[in-house]
Every structure is written in structure tokens, then in C-alpha cells.
């Protein structure tokens, strides 16, 4: 099958595949010609050249090279024929749009374009949902636009075809199916676009046999079921107590960008705010959310129901409500959690990711008792990011298997890959007469389809979104379609015999349905232009504002009993479920002491459900917890590994009843619940493109549909060690800080008493007694007269999500190096997020054995994330050792790296105490060995034109985004003023949803960074490795945990 959409050939020989060409194509150097008589005189010299010839050739080539060096190549400058009015070469334009993916990903964004090509995603500060930052996947998304694997036009089978023929053929065949009364099924992932839904309604109206089947690869159907089919929108900024039960709401959940921001609002402490929320987390795999919790307790999936029911009983007892009868089960801190929940009623929240509707019903009951509904849970302005119906999908799969479907259209889904019964489904697909896919490439599903009608990339599309009820946002194109693709909605409308311009359809929809909500004042045109400018239209936000205060008041007054259920618009407070029946079901299903090994599937924050697996930035993005990239692996607790004599990288065979056997490598994961293993979905793509294929294994077949709800846990799996090992590409192999004061933390109690608690203030012994390291120095120091660029990183609000890492990569043209080079420890990321586990060892035992123990992470460790980047030291150790002064100091506090001066001695990297310098071991662009985006013209369009693409043999490192500093300064100078605070900001600080990274001018006393720096200097502020007196321009703030 033809995989690539474009065929290039270098000459006619290649096109016609001549024998000689094929022979020679394999060898880089041509083979020696037939021996000549002259060669006969010099036997043994097959190349036919003598020493003299060699000298001649050498002399000639030397001359040729020097001559060639003198000749400058003629370069051209090609202006527009007719320059668009709003495009100025070299000046960025920003367009408000929205990032949407099939995995519940949503971000309101600004797209930075240069000369008409999108290069960077930035948060839209006007959005009330994702005002402060973006997700990892949104940051990486521009690269998916420039993917050479995308189809360059519609396909019939594997053959190119034009749109007109496609339309006439498909319309004819759909009509044929419809006239025979055949079933037409439109299978999509959750659709959050109101206009797309309207287009689908129009399509269904035209073909009465058609039905819309919505399903999600990672389903939240139980939570939806309990809330009348809507996904509640949580408000962590109001929650003083959060109990999470198998819910990774900071990581892989929908709305995680919003939730991270809200969560951080509660977690931030400072001079004026000395309180923070308390977070209990019960989960199987160590997730990003669990890593941020104050109390994290590992549980087996088979205990989850009992845990929830027992939590209910404890809460009910405190609140005076009736208990339910379930077997007694106790987990660590469960009593405390119940006590805190009740004490913080109206400001408490229990959140569960369980796919068991009984468990979710009990969770809803707890939330009703603690007054979460209306306060921390909003079911009126609910989230729309997940709305899949597992039952409908199961029915559809059955229909296909029974051959009862006449035509099927796949939109944003890939069931052959991501459905639990995908493989069987793929085989039965041939029973469907007409199969159409809107996929942008040959995927596992679309390659089985009769027609592929590729949809635009979201950066090429018009569209809209309603990620939360009453919160609308717009999708607008930022580039002309690169290929001959077409809006999927337009295809549907054309086949439905409606208008064939989706843009005017979209406008019409907004005119009739949304414009009236804007108050109706003024003309639609101005409303439309305003919406395009803002990117958002949030009539519900204004309404919420006015009723917010009212709601909290009523919640406080609500009696502490299970309140009556209501099912008004939205999810109400959870549907009426007989709690006792639920309890019986829970008692039947869950066991406190199951001995079987259980598997819990999970999603990685970067790869998600695998839709964007071919994005090399996402593949190379290290998972925040395991710090591994380019793979999935079985996460195994230490105890199990010891019992099975497994070491990291060993391969095991995974088996379960009725599931395919898969072989995966093992990664020993602290915090993994005993008797359980974890495996990430989204890997093992077989048809997606070069970067995604043959990376990891597909874990989706291990999901099951239980009682109509997709379940991501397998109660009994068999693990056998097999031959061979598999290196896992991990960017951090050291787990703990070995009792060194690199990360510093304190408990809230201590912090309240002493703001500097936990912060390590080193003293150096001198003849005049101990002194602060900065008091003694052999350096004169630098004077920063103009600006002094600095950063404050709050380790308390950093959740470790890693959006900053990808933002840095995209902004600074950081190359992708691939799996093997990461294993060789040659990854190029300028910014990393170090993840440290706590250790149980006694840090005072300073013996080799003691040190060895200190390296071991606890079985259930506490976790700290520390973003680490160039510290821009004032007394920079790298600067003093460079023999060619390629790294030097600026008068604005920057440690400058000059690539064109660097000769690659790597002394600087050796002398850097923070290990943040990266060496270009290879030329990563135009290099077949690194066949990622920098090896083709299309992929290179994502590169930032303001940043040099580094070549082999030079050092590089974080520049504090000096290109942005220079641009911001210039903008200020052009307007004859000083730069404003917040105007100049690094890519990492901009992408951070929790505002953990604050960047600015320390000389500007009004700036946020200077105020934070000065305010916390005697408090939480510390410099990493302060004792060596390198005087970094980055201050970290200690992590505070809220433990009793």
C-alpha cells in the first residue's frame, strides 16, 4: 500500500526504476569501474589510482574548495506580488483560535504566525478557562500541521482522486444505501463544536437512516451517567479539601489546564496568604495529580469501591446521615479525609475517575453531603469535553459485526486502534458497504476505508467550540490549507445537499444562535469581528459572575444531609441512585484483599490517546513521572520486581483472559500500588507516520466494556519474564536528591511559624566566623544598569505538567534527537523538570551503604518537581573556562552563548553545576539519521526564524529567550518608552498554566518578579547550590506541603 502521499524522484531513471539505477542506489559511492590495462600494472589497487593520482586529486580538490569558497552563491529575495495588508515580513501576527483534540483537549489560544505560517501557540489571556497557560499537546500542535504523513488530497482506497468525483460517488452511494433503508452511522469522538453538531444534524436530516455515534477512546461514561450525561465542571480554586480517587485531574483529564490553574490558586502561599488546600489522593499508578497531593495512598483498583463506600460512611457519620452497608475497609488517612471534608463543607470536593457507575453514585452522594454541588462542582455550566456513550459504541460494533450497517463515516476516531475490540472490528469492517474517513492520514482505521476525505488541520480550519456550557470560542484559520484538504463539516454538508461553504454556514449559525445571546446590540458584523479578535464569547461567564456570591451563601446554609436530588438542566446534583443498591453492588464487585495482579491503564500527558503520536515533540517529551520518552512500559512496584527478580529494562509477557499477549519492557516505579502494574495507552501505532510507528505496544486491547462502561483496569493479569532486555529512554535516572539541599520543602505548619522554614541558608566558614557565601568572593561582580532579567520559580505551584518544556522546544528550535540519542544521554532540551522522590533512608548515615540506601526511593514517595534551566549565574563557572569566550556575560544579567564562536571544547558543560548545557553531537537538520521535522522542507516551516538553528559541534543552552527580550525592548524603544512588566516573557513562563514561573526585569521595582523576589528573599526564596556562590538570576521558592 502506498503510504506517502507525495512521490518525489530525482531523475527519470528513478521514475522508470532502471536496473542500473536500482543497483547503484544502494551504495553511496559508485562501485569501481571495470579494470583498465593501466590498472593491471598496479595489481591490488582496485580503485585504479596511484600515489601520484592521489596527490593530483588532492591538489585539485584543495584548489577547487578554495575557489568554491570564494564564490558566493547567488541568493534571491522574493517579495509578494500583492502583499496582504496585515502581513509585514518579520513581524509576528497573532490570531485567536482554539486547540481541540479527540482526547478532550481544549485550549483557548493565540497562534503566532510569521509571513503566514503558524509557528507557536500561546495562551489567550481573554479566556476565562485557559487564561494563564496551555497544555503540552497544544504547545506541540503546530508541528502536526507540518507533518509530511498528511494526505495531500482525497483518496479512493489508496489512489488519489479529486473532490468532485469523491462527492458525486459518495453522494450516489449514500443515496443508494438510504433508499434501500440501510443504516448509516456517523462515528465521532466527543464534538464540542455547536456548528459541527448542527452540520451533523443537517446530514442526518438528509439521510433518515443515519445515526450519530459518539464515543471516546478514554471514556468518562460512568461520571457522565451519574450527572445526566454531562461532565461536571469542577472548581478547584474554591476547594479547601480535595479528595481524588483515581482521578488525574491535573494531568490527563479534560480541562486539566483550567484545573491546574485553579488548583494552584489554592496552593500558592505568600506573605498575605498563609493557608492552602489539602489534597488527599488514592490511586493505583503514580500520576501527576498524586505527585502533587499532600497525602497520597496507593490502592488497588479492586479496592476502589470499598474505599469510596467507606469514605461515604465516615462522612455520613460525621454529618449525621444514614450509612450504607459495605464491608469495612480502611486506607491511610481515610478518617482524616472524611473529617476534613466535613469541616470544609461548601469548600470540599471528592473527584473520582472510576468507570463504575455505582462508585460514581456514591461519590456524588458524598459531594452532596459536603455541599460541593453549586460550589466546587458546576453541573449547570458543565464541561462538554467528554460525552462519549460506550453503550452506543458497543451496539455499533455489534451492528457492524452482524453486517447491519450500510455506510459508516469516521470522524476524529480511530476505533481499529483505540477500541478494546479494535482488531476484530477492523476485520468485520469489510461487511460495511461504504466506509468513509475524515482522517488526515492513513491510520489503522482510515486505511481500511473506501474513501478518505482528509479534514483540515485545526490551524487551517474555521470552527467553533463550546468546551463548557455557555463558554464559546472560535477556531480561525491561520494558514491557507497546505494540502487539498477540506473541512469535514463541509464534506457532510455537501453530501447532505446543503451549501458548500462551511465558513458562511458557521457565520449563519452564530448569527442565528449566538448573536442573540450577546444582547443583540449592534450589528452582527461587529460582534463577529470582536469574537474573532477575542477568540472567545462567554455569555455564561458574565452570568456566573453575578450569581457566584449568592450560590456560596446558599451552600453554607444547606443542612448536612443527603440533599434531595434534582435533575434540572445540566447534571443537577447527580441522578437518583438507590445508594443501598449501589452499596450492594460495590460489596459484590470489590474486595479488600485481592491477591491477583491487577493492571491499570493510564494516559500520558503528552501522547494522550495516541492521536498525535506522530508528533516528534510529543514523543520526545519525557513523561513527568517516569521521565521516559519514546516508549511505553509496564510500571512495576519495587516489591513485585524484587519478587520476580526483574530489573529495569527486562522484558515481560503480559497475559490476561481473552486478551492478546503483549511483550513489554519493565520500569520500576516507586509509588505503584502493591500487586498492580500500569501501562500507558497511546503507543504501538501501526499506521500513523514515521515517528509514531513501532514505538511501544498498544494497550487499548486490555480495556474492556463492563456493564456498558469502558473499563481501564484488568483484575487479573499474568506476568512472565522473558528473554531479552529493552533499553528505556529515560532522561533522568537518579531518583532522589540524596539529602542535598537542591529541592527544599517545608510543612505548612512550620511555614506559618517561620516563612523561611525548610529553606537552606548556607554559611561558609571564614577566619572571621561563618559568613553568607556571597559575602566572600574573588569576583568583582557585574553591574546591571539597564535591565536585570530574572526569574522566580514557585515549586509549590509547579505541578510538573511540562508545558514549559515543549514551549521551550518550539520557541527555540530545539532539535528532536530520537530514542537512541536520549539513551545515549544526548537529549537537547534546554529546560527540564527534575522529578525527585523522597527516600526512607537516614540521611545522617554517611557511609557508602548509607548513600546507596539514600538513592533508593520510598515505596510510596513524596514527589517534588523542579524546573531546571540555565541559572544565568552572575559568577558563571562556564564563562571562566571557555577558551574562546564563546560564552560571556551581558550587562542585562544574561549568560550569553555565541554559537558561531563556539569550538566545542565542552569545558563549559563540564563546569556547569546545574548540568543545563547541551552539546550538538550531530547536525540535526538535513540529516537522514534524524528524520524528524528538521529533515524536510515542510517540517522546517515550524522553525522560529528569530533563533539560529545550531549545527554540529557547538554548545547550546537556555538563553532566557533573548530573542523575545530583544524584540520586547525594541518595541518599547520604537514607542519611546520603557518596557512594561509582562510584556517581555519567556516561552516557559508564558506556557505555565499555574504561573509557577515568573519572569521579568529585577531592576523594575514594580515588576511582579522583582516584588516576588524581594518579598520572598528572607522567606521561601532560595538559590540552588547557593553555597558555591555563583549567584543565579533564578530564585526558587520552597515547596510547602499541607500536612496535619
Amino acid at each position: 500500500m502506498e503510504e506517502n502521499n507525495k512521490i518525489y524522484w530525482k531523475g527519470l531513471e528513478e521514475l522508470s526504476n532502471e536496473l542500473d539505477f536500482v543497483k547503484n542506489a544502494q551504495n553511496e559511492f559508485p562501485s569501481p569501474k571495470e579494470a583498465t590495462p593501466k590498472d593491471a600494472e598496479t595489481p591490488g589497487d582496485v580503485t585504479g589510482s596511484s600515489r601520484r593520482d592521489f596527490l593530483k586529486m588532492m591538489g585539485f580538490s584543495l584548489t577547487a574548495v578554495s575557489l568554491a569558497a570564494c564564490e558566493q552563491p547567488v541568493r534571491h529575495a522574493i517579495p509578494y506580488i500583492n502583499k496582504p495588508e496585515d502581513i509585514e515580513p518579520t513581524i509576528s501576527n497573532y490570531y485567536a483560535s482554539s486547540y481541540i483534540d479527540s482526547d478532550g483537549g481544549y485550549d483557548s489560544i493565540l497562534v503566532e504566525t510569521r509571513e503566514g505560517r503558524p509557528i507557536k501557540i500561546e495562551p489567550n489571556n481573554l479566556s476565562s478557562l485557559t487564561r494563564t497557560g496551555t497544555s503540552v499537546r497544544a504547545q506541540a500542535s503546530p508541528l502536526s500541521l507540518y507533518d509530511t504523513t498528511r494526505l495531500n488530497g482525497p483518496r479512493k482506497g489508496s489512489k488519489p482522486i479529486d473532490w468532485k468525483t469523491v462527492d458525486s460517488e459518495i453522494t450516489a452511494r449514500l443515496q443508494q444505501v438510504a433508499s434501500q433503508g440501510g443504516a448509516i452511522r456517523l462515528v465521532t469522538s466527543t464534538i464540542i463544536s455547536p456548528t459541527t453538531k448542527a452540520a451533523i444534524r443537517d446530514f442526518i436530516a438528509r439521510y433518515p437512516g443515519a445515526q450519530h455515534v459518539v464515543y471516546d477512546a478514554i471514556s468518562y461514561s460512568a461520571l457522565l451517567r451519574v450527572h445526566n450525561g454531562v461532565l461536571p465542571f469542577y472548581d478547584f480554586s474554591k476547594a479547601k479539601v480535595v479528595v481524588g480517587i483515581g482521578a488525574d485531574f491535573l494531568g490527563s483529564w479534560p480541562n486539566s489546564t483550567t484545573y491546574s490553574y485553579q488548583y494552584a490558586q489554592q496552593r500558592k502561599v505568600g506573605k498575605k496568604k498563609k493557608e492552602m488546600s489539602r489534597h488527599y489522593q488514592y490511586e493505583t499508578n503514580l500520576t501527576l495529580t498524586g505527585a502533587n497531593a499532600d497525602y497520597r495512598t496507593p490502592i488497588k483498583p479492586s479496592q476502589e469501591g470499598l474505599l469510596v463506600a467507606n469514605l461515604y460512611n465516615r462522612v455520613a457519620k460525621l454529618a449525621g446521615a444514614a450509612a450504607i452497608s459495605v464491608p469495612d475497609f480502611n486506607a491511610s488517612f481515610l478518617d482524616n479525609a472524611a473529617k476534613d471534608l466535613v469541616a470544609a463543607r461548601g469548600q470540599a470536593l471528592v473527584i473520582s475517575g472510576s468507570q463504575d457507575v455505582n462508585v460514581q453514585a456514591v461519590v456524588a452522594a458524598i459531594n452532596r453531603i459536603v455541599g460541593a454541588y453549586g460550589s466546587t462542582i458546576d453541573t449547570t455550566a458543565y464541561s462538554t469535553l467528554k460525552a462519549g456513550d460506550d453503550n452506543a459504541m458497543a451496539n455499533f460494533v455489534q451492528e457492524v459485526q452482524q453486517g447491519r450497517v450500510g455506510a459508516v463515516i469516521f470522524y476524529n476516531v480511530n476505533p481499529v486502534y483505540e477500541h478494546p475490540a479494535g482488531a476484530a472490528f477492523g476485520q468485520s469492517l469489510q461487511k460495511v458497504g461504504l466506509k468513509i474517513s475524515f482522517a488526515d492520514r492513513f491510520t489503522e482505521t482510515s486505511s481500511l476505508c473506501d474513501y478518505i476525505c482528509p479534514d483540515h488541520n485545526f490551524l487551517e480550519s474555521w470552527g467553533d467550540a463550546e468546551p463548557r456550557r455557555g463558554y464559546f470560542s472560535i477556531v480561525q484559520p491561520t494558514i491557507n490549507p497546505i494540502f487539498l484538504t477540506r473541512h469535514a463539516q463541509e464534506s457532510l454538508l455537501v453530501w447532505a445537499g446543503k451549501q458548500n461553504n462551511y465558513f458562511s454556514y458557521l457565520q449563519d449559525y452564530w448569527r442565528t444562535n449566538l448573536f442573540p445571546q450577546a444582547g443583540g446590540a449592534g450589528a452582527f458584523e461587529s460582534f463577529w469581528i470582536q469574537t474573532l479578535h477575542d477568540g472567545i464569547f462567554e455569555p455564561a461567564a458574565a452570568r456566573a459572575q453575578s450569581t457566584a456570591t449568592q450560590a456560596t451563601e446558599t451552600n453554607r446554609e444547606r443542612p448536612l444531609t443527603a440533599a434531595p436530588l434534582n435533575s434540572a438542566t445540566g447534571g443537577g446534583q447527580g441522578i437518583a441512585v438507590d445508594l443501598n443498591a449501589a452499596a450492594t453492588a460495590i460489596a459484590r464487585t470489590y474486595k479488600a484483599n485481592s491477591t491477583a495482579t491487577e493492571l491499570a491503564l493510564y494516559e500520558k500527558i503528552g501522547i494522550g490517546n495516541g492521536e498525535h503520536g506522530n508528533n516528534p515533540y510529543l514523543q520526545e517529551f519525557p513523561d513527568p513521572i517516569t521521565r521516559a520518552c519514546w516508549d511505553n512500559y509496564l510500571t512495576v512496584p519495587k516489591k513485585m520486581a524484587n519478587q520476580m527478580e526483574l530489573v529495569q529494562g527486562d522484558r515481560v509477557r503480559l497475559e490476561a483472559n481473552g486478551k492478546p499477549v503483549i511483550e513489554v519492557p519493565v520500569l520500576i516505579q516507586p509509588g505503584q500500588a502493591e500487586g498492580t502494574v500500569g501501562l500507558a495507552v497511546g503507543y504501538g501505532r501501526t499506521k500513523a507516520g514515521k515517528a509514531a510507528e513501532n514505538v511501544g505496544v498498544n494497550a487499548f486491547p486490555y480495556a474492556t466494556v463492563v456493564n456498558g462502561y469502558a473499563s481501564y483496569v484488568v483484575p487479573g493479569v499474568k506476568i512472565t519474564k522473558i528473554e531479552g532486555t529493552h533499553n528505556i529512554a529515560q532522561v533522568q535516572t537518579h531518583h532522589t536528591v540524596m539529602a542535598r539541599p537542591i529541592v527544599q520543602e517545608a510543612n505548612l505548619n512550620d511555614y506559618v511559624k517561620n516563612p523561611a522554614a525548610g529553606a537552606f541558608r548556607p554559611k561558609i566558614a571564614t577566619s572571621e566566623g561563618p559568613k553568607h557565601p556571597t559575602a566572600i568572593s574573588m569576583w568583582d561582580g557585574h553591574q546591571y544598569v539597564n535591565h536585570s532579567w530574572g526569574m522566580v520559580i514557585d515549586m509549590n505551584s509547579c505541578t510538573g505538567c511540562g508545558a514549559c518544556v515543549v514551549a521551550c522546544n518550539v520557541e527555540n528550535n530545539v532539535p528532536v534527537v530520537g530514542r537512541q540519542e536520549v539513551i545515549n544521554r544526548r537529549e537537547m532540551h534546554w529546560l527540564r523538570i527534575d522529578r525527585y522522590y523522597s527516600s526512607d533512608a537516614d540521611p545522617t548515615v554517611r557511609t557508602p551503604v548509607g548513600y546507596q540506601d539514600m538513592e533508593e526511593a520510598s515505596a510510596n514517595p513524596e514527589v517534588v518537581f523542579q524546573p531546571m534551566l540555565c541559572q544565568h549565574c552572575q559568577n558563571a563557572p562556564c564563562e571562566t573556562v571557555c577558551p574562546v569566550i564563546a560564552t560571556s556575560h551581558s550587562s542585562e544579567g544574561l549568560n550569553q552563548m555565541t554559537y558561531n564562536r563556539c569550538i566545542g571544547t565542552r569545558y563549559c558543560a563540564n563546569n556547569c553545576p546545574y548540568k543545563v548545557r547541551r552539546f550538538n553531537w550531530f547536525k540535526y537538520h538535513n540529516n537522514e539519521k534524524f528524520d524528524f521535522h528538521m529533515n524536510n522542507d515542510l517540517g522546517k516551516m515550524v522553525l522560529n526564524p528569530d533563533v539560529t538553528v545550531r549545527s554540529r559541534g557547538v554548545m547550546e543552552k537556555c538563553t532566557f529567550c533573548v530573542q523575545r527580550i530583544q524584540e520586547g525592548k525594541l518595541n518599547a524603544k520604537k514607542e519611546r518608552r520603557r518596557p512594561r512588566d509582562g510584556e517581555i516573557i519567556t516561552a516557559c513562563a508564558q506556557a505555565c498554566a499555574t504561573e509557577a514561573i515568573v519572569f521579568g526585569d529585577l531592576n523594575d521595582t514594580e515588576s511582579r518578579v522583582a516584588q516576588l523576589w524581594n518579598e520572598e528573599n528572607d522567606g521561601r526564596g532560595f538559590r540552588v547550590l547557593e553555597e558555591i556562590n555563583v549567584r543565579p538570576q533564578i530564585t526558587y521558592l520552597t515547596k510547602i506541603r499541607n500536612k496535619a
Partner: protein
Amino acid sequence: MNTLLDKFFALARKNACKSWGIMLFCCLLGLATWLPAQAQENNAEATLPADVVDTDGTSDLPAGGSQPRTQDPAQVSQGKTIFNNYCSACHAVTNEVVVGPGLQGINERRQRDWLINWIHNPQKVVESGDQYANDLLKKFNGNLMPAFPDLTDQEIQSVLAYIDVAGSGENANTVAGGDTDGKLVPSGSGTTVAPGGGLGSTSFTIILVALLVILLLVLLVLIMIVSLLSKFLSDKKDLAPEDREVLEQKVNWKAIAGSSAFKGGVALIFALVVGKVANDQVMSIGIQQGYAPKQPIAYSHKLHAGQYQIDCNYCHTTVSKGKTASIPSLNICMNCHGVIKTASPEIQKIYAAIEQNKPVEWVRVHNLPDLAYFNHAQHVNVGQVPCQTCHGEIQNMEVVQHISSLTMGWCIDCHRKTEVNGKDNAYYDKLVALHSKESKEPMRVANIGGLECSKCHY
């Protein structure tokens, strides 16, 4: 080496009385070759506009120019900007006909209201049957002026005020007060030579020439004395044989040429010359000074920027906004060439490009390597550096030529010399104050980090 020197000095002692004469002659010869070179260099310096970076904008006010009619300078300066942006492509402020009529005295010729109507919509005025308008149209072969409906009455009045001032025979520069925003300064009038520098170099030359003359005279006198004394001594009979030997000694040129010291010296000089030439050749790799490739359309800056004085900003629209000056898109050409010189074969190439939707592939003259970041807006807008500083006398170029070396040394040199243009720029206020506290020298680019790597390399 010591022995070599000894031999050389022994030889020199032998020829003592003659050799100092030779040395003096050598000195003169050297001076004679050096002087013209020095003079040339001085000339080069004098014409180098790098020294003319005018930071306070007052120096090109002529001392004794006659004052024009009273006009609000702010209005005039606004009018000038508008005139340069909209009008200068077709009109001159003098009597000269560029495309449309020369505008000198327009305020006397026509009523203000008529002019405003005309500028807003000439078509309407013509259609209203206005005699003057129709005559004008006839005179210019039916080429009607484009309408400018967006210009406000106040803006038009400022343009008229500017024409009034500029057309009264004065150089408009003087009135607007040191406007150097990338404006072309016509050769001869604008490229003022820094007065001190020019005068200094002339007097220096005079002194040198005078010294040369004096030295020649001294030499002449000395030769005369030597020959006189020699003659006197040879006439003397009672001269000791040793003295006579000295007196009758001949210079042994052969011995000098054959000496290893001479050979060594020649070899050394040869090696140095070869080394210098080779070094210069190697260092010039990648430097395209003098590069003037043939362009696909024979566009003349001399005609547009020189003769018609079209503002640089008119075509290079981003020069004060962005990194590049931007090569104009064809729609900018069409602003004028929709009606002007439509039959010219060069202009026909524009039409062909537009019809075939094929952009013109201009040959890049200035190729800065990718590793160096240069921003036009910083220099032209913020620094108010005239285009000519780097691009040479672009207004006199028929074909654009690469003038400056664009080497890092050249950049750094300018950053060392150039004063920061901090006037009316709040960005620099504090910096200038801090600098003047510490130093009496003006604040130069190098003083505020203009030599730092990350200013250009990232």
C-alpha cells in the same frame, strides 16, 4: 642574527658619510608615497556618512538661511510626512513636473476649498465641469490624479502648509528641523561633513607638504655642503692617506647586494608582503563589497530616490517597523506605474509578473549570514541612522551595489563610535542620566552593551 647585524653596521660605517644621505632620501621617498595615500584616506573619511549620525537634529540648520513665511512647524512637519508618503511620487514642491504639475505657489493659484475637494475626489471635480480641472486633465493627457478620500481637511492643510514653506525656495529640511528618519539626503546638500574633521585634515595635509618642502631644502643644502667640503678636501695636498681613502671611497653596491643581510632583508619583506596579500585574500572570503548583480528588472534608485526623491519608506515599508527593510511587493510599484511609463519594457516585466502570478526574483545584494541578527527598525527608527550609513549613496546608484563590508569588525566599529540617539526616547532617559554622571563622553552604543554577543547572535 647578531653577526648579521654587525656586518650590516660595519658596512654602514664604511659608507658613513654617504649612507645618511641615502637614508634621508629614503625618508623623503617614503613621505612622498605616503602623503597622497593619507590625503585619499582623509577624503574617504570625510565622505563617510558614519560620522554624520546626527543625534540632536540641530546641526543641519543652516546658520543664515532666510526664514520662510510663518507656519506652525509641527503642522509643516506633519505635512512633510504626508507629502512624502502620498504626493512625492508624482509631485515636486518646486515648479518641476514629475508626473503631475509642480506645486510651487499652489496656495496662490487655487482656493483652499477647491484643493481639498480636488484631493478628496478629483473625478468629482472634473465631472462638476470645473474649467481649471478640465484644462489640467487635458494638459496631462487625461491622467487623473488618484483620490485620497481618507486624508482629513486638517491633514491636507498641513500638506499645503508644507508646500508653501518648502516651495518658497527653502530646503524643507531646515524647517522641519533635522528630520532624518531614513530620509534620503540629496548629495551635496545633506551629507554634511563634520566640520572639525574636514578642516583638520586639510590643515594636516598643508603642514605635511610644508614639512616635505623643508626637508627637501635641507637635503639640498646638505648635499651642497658635502660636495663643497669634498671638493675642498680633494684640493688639499697634505691629506693623510687614511683620510684620502675615506674621501675617495666609492660605494660598493655589489658588496651590499651580495651581503647576506641584504638578502635576508629582501626575503623578509617578500615574505611579509606575500603573507599580507594572502591574509587579505582569506579575510575577504564571504565579503561581497562591490557586489552589484544585474537585477531581473533594471530598477534605478538614482531615478526614484535620487531624482524624484521618493521617500525610502514609501517602498521599503517595514524599514522602521521590522527586521528587514522588505523589498516592495509589486502592488507598490503599481501605485505609480499603473499610469506612469506603462510602455517601458522594464515596466512591462511588472505587468507580466502580475499576470502570470509569478513574483519577481530579485538578486539579494546584502547577504548577512544567518548567525547574525540585524534589525532595521532598531537602527533606522530608534537610532535614526540614515540609510546611506550602511548602503552608501544609494540615491546615486543606477544598480544597487554592496558598499559596506558587513563584517563584524565593521559593525563593532560603528557601535563603538556611534552615540546613542536618546533624544525624546524615554527608554534611554535613565541610562543617559546615569552615564552622564559617570562620564563626560557622550553615551555610545558600546556603553550600553552594544558590543555584547547576544545583541546580534542568538
